Structures are given as structure tokens and as C-alpha cells.
């Protein structure tokens, strides 16, 4: 069974149809990168996968559970779907450690001591064990994003969604964040990454989706999609960014 199954997804904001019809499936441990011009609907697509955007039509299944079905508890589903944002969205009034332990403790997943232990392991993994007691405002952008990744991992998600995780970073720290994501991919995490980092997509992705005009125009293994694009729009986009 696919980890994520998207069937005929549609999303409109008022009269504006952002996602017209998208279907795809992501297998366990697969890393999928989503590329496309700005305004093409790629971030909206990602945000529909944990219902941060209410879906206008179609179905999304996470590990077999229909997230659009009102009978299913969306809060429970979201515990399995980690999300990393372009602007980090760390909680500025809490220490790094509290950022990581809040959700596991409040959702009843872990006891406070266990959550803290896990948080320290995760911080060590992203290279920031020394910053546990710091506040987000005391960190650089790259450090913030690594904390945000650790915060999402603290819930033990089955899937990780990344919404342009390096777009707001200074160029010299992009590598640190991508490094953490590469490690995560190697460990077998199922990942969907909306990104402008074509190098990362080419190196890490199992598959790349090119989204434009509310449709998945083309999807393929990175070597084929970057080396031998089939559609005119894909070619036009790649010629501008590569």
C-alpha cells in the first residue's frame, strides 16, 4: 500500500482554481521532490496533504486513512505527518527543547522525561545538542530550520513534508539543512520536498514531480526528468533554472 495516495485532488481559493486535478502516489521510503514555477500550486499541493488547506475535491490517503473523511480525526492524522516550513515557524517563547517536547507531551504520545530524552537525541542528530536551552531568537536561520526538522521528527511521523525548506536561508547554511535532509532520506523516511534546489532533487529524489498550472505536468526519476524532459513546459522551466 502506498504511504500517500492522492486521487483527483482539487483546491480552489474562491474563484481561483489553484489545483485543478492532481493524482499521484508515494511509496514508503520514497523521496519525492516537487518543482515548478512560483504560483504553480506546489506549496498548496503539499499543504493539502495534511489538510492545512481544506481540500475542495478528490481524496488524499495517508497510510490508507482518508484525511478528507470528517469521521477521521485530523489531529491524529497530522501526528503522523511532519511538516517543515519555509519560515521555520519555531515557537519563539519557548526554548529549543520545549519546542521539541511540547507536541509529544501534549498529544499524550510521550511522558515529559521520555520526550526530553528523545528531543536531546534528535538535537544531537541535527548537530544542535548544545542549543537545547537556547531560544529560537538566538539561533541562525540554518540552525532554526534544523531545529524545526527535529521538532517535526519528535512526533515520529511516517511522512515528512518540506515546504521550500531552504528558500529563506543564507546560501552558506543551505548545505547544513540539506545534509540533515539527506541523512533522513538515507534512513528511509518517506519525504515530499517542494524545492528550488535542483541539485538536491537530482541527487536525493527517487522521483521528481513538475507542477504547473494546477496539474502534475510530468513526473519521472530525476535523471530522466532533468536530462530528457518530455513536455514543452517542463523544458521551458528547466531551461530557466538549470
Amino acid at each position, binding site marked *: 500500500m502506498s504511504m500517500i495516495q492522492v486521487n483527483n485532488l482539487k483546491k480552489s481559493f474562491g474563484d481561483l482554481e489553484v489545483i485543478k486535478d492532481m493524482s499521484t502516489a508515494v511509496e514508503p521510503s520514497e523521496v519525492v521532490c516537487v518543482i515548478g514555477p512560483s504560483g504553480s500550486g506546489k506549496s498548496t499541493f503539499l499543504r493539502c496533504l*495534511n489538510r*492545512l488547506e481544506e481540500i475542495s475535491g478528490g481524496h488524499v490517503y495517508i497510510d490508507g486513512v482518508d484525511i478528507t473523511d470528517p469521521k477521521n480525526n485530523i*489531529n*491524529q492524522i*497530522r*501526528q503522523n*505527518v*511532519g*511538516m517543515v*516550513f519555509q*519560515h521555520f*515557524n*519555531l*515557537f*519563539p*517563547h519557548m526554548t529549543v527543547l520545549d519546542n521539541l517536547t*511540547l*507536541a509529544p507531551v*501534549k*498529544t499524550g504520545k510521550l511522558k515529559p522525561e521520555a520526550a526530553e530524552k528523545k528531543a536531546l537525541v534528535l538535537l544531537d542528530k541535527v548537530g544542535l545538542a548544545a542549543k537545547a536551552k537556547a*531560544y*529560537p*531568537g*538566538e539561533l541562525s536561520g540554518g540552525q532554526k530550520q534544523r531545529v*524545526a526538522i527535529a*521538532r*517535526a521528527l519528535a*512526533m515520529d511521523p511516517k511522512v515528512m513534508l518540506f515546504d521550500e525548506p531552504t528558500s529563506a536561508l543564507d546560501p552558506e547554511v543551505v548545505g547544513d539543512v540539506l545534509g540533515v535532509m539527506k541523512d533522513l532520506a538515507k534512513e528511509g523516511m518517506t519525504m515530499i520536498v517542494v524545492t528550488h534546489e535542483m541539485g538536491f532533487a537530482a541527487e536525493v529524489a527517487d522521483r521528481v514531480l513538475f507542477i504547473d498550472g494546477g496539474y502534475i505536468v510530468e513526473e519521472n526519476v530525476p535523471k530522466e526528468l532533468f536530462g530528457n524532459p518530455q513536455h514543452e513546459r517542463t523544458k521551458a522551466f528547466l531551461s530557466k533554472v538549470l
Partner: protein
Amino acid sequence: METIIESLPMLWEGLKMTLYIFAVAIVLGFLIGLVMALLRLSPLKILNWIAKIFVDAIRGTPFIVQLFFIYFGLNSFSWVSLDKEWAGIVTVAINAGAYFAEIIRAGIQSIDKGQTEAARSLGLTQSQNMRHIVLPQAFRRMLPTITNQAIISLKDTSLLSIIGVADLTQRGRVIVSATFEPFTIYLALGVMYFVIIYLLSLLSGYLERRFVLR
């Protein structure tokens, strides 16, 4: 000077009443404000309307009229019996509540949407998000405006002397009518109000430094 020293025990009684009414009313007012702000932000239209009508009605009428309405108006029904202290507390609380509602609503709306998105994406419920993420941050931002409203409400309590609440102002008036020394007595009242309000703003400043936004 002698007059002031002789009237100190009475003024002290009045001060205690003023502080008691203020403390109860401001806590109630804050709760009213919080509830109204949440109604105002709720997705249900009917709840928005209830909160909006409440806020507009209170902001659009004078404090004295509200006080008379509650003390004389409501008490004209046989099944209502509010003593003057409680009528005063309720009036100050409702009045402050309407202003707090707007302060709290603006405070909540000033918090970046990304905070809520991050909290919800982790599986926290909307009320957990409010309690742990949005309100603590909003409260820090609101502190100066909340203090300001608290100071206004404290000063409003002096209007309760009109219905005979034995607060600081009322005690002063009684002393003046017995001693015929309005200059010294009202000066003393002014100093006492000033000192409490100054202490309030010191407290607020301390809280702001204590909970500095990082």
C-alpha cells in the same frame, strides 16, 4: 495637615474598598474580554455577532449610564437584587471586558499565522494551539495596552461613589462635607490614586521585562 491625619483611617477604609472592587472587576473583566475575543474570532457567524453587539453597545454608551442601568435599571425587577458594591463591580467588569475583548482580539490576530500552522501540523488541537502557542505570545504583546485599560478601569471605580459605594472617592466626599477642607482632602485623594496607578505601571514594566519576547 491635622485634618488629613485624622481622616487617614477613613481614607484607608475607602482605599481598601477601591482596591477590592478593582481587583475583582479586573479579573472578571479580563475573563469576559477573553471569552468575547474568542467569540469574535470564532468561525461561527452568530457568535461573532453576539460579541460584536456586546462590544459596540458598551463602547458606544457612557460608563455612568451603564452603571445606572445596572444598579437602578436591573434592580427595578423584583427578581434582581444587586447591592451597590456588586452593581459597581459588574459595571466595571463589563465595561473593561468590552475594551479587553478588542485588545485581546488584536493581540491574537497579531500572531503570525505560521505559528498556528506549525502547532496544528504537529497534531495539536485548536484549543491546545491557543493555550500553549498563540495566547502566551499574544499576552506579552498586549501587556502595555492591558495595563493602560486596567488604569482606566481603576479610575472609573471612583465614579461608583455616585451610587454611594464607600470607595476612596466617596470617603473623601464625606470627609469634605464634615471638615470643609476640599483642597487638602481632594489633593490627598489625588496623591493616593496616583500612587496606586504608579505602582500598577511599575508592575506592568516588571512583567514586560520578565516576559521579554525573544
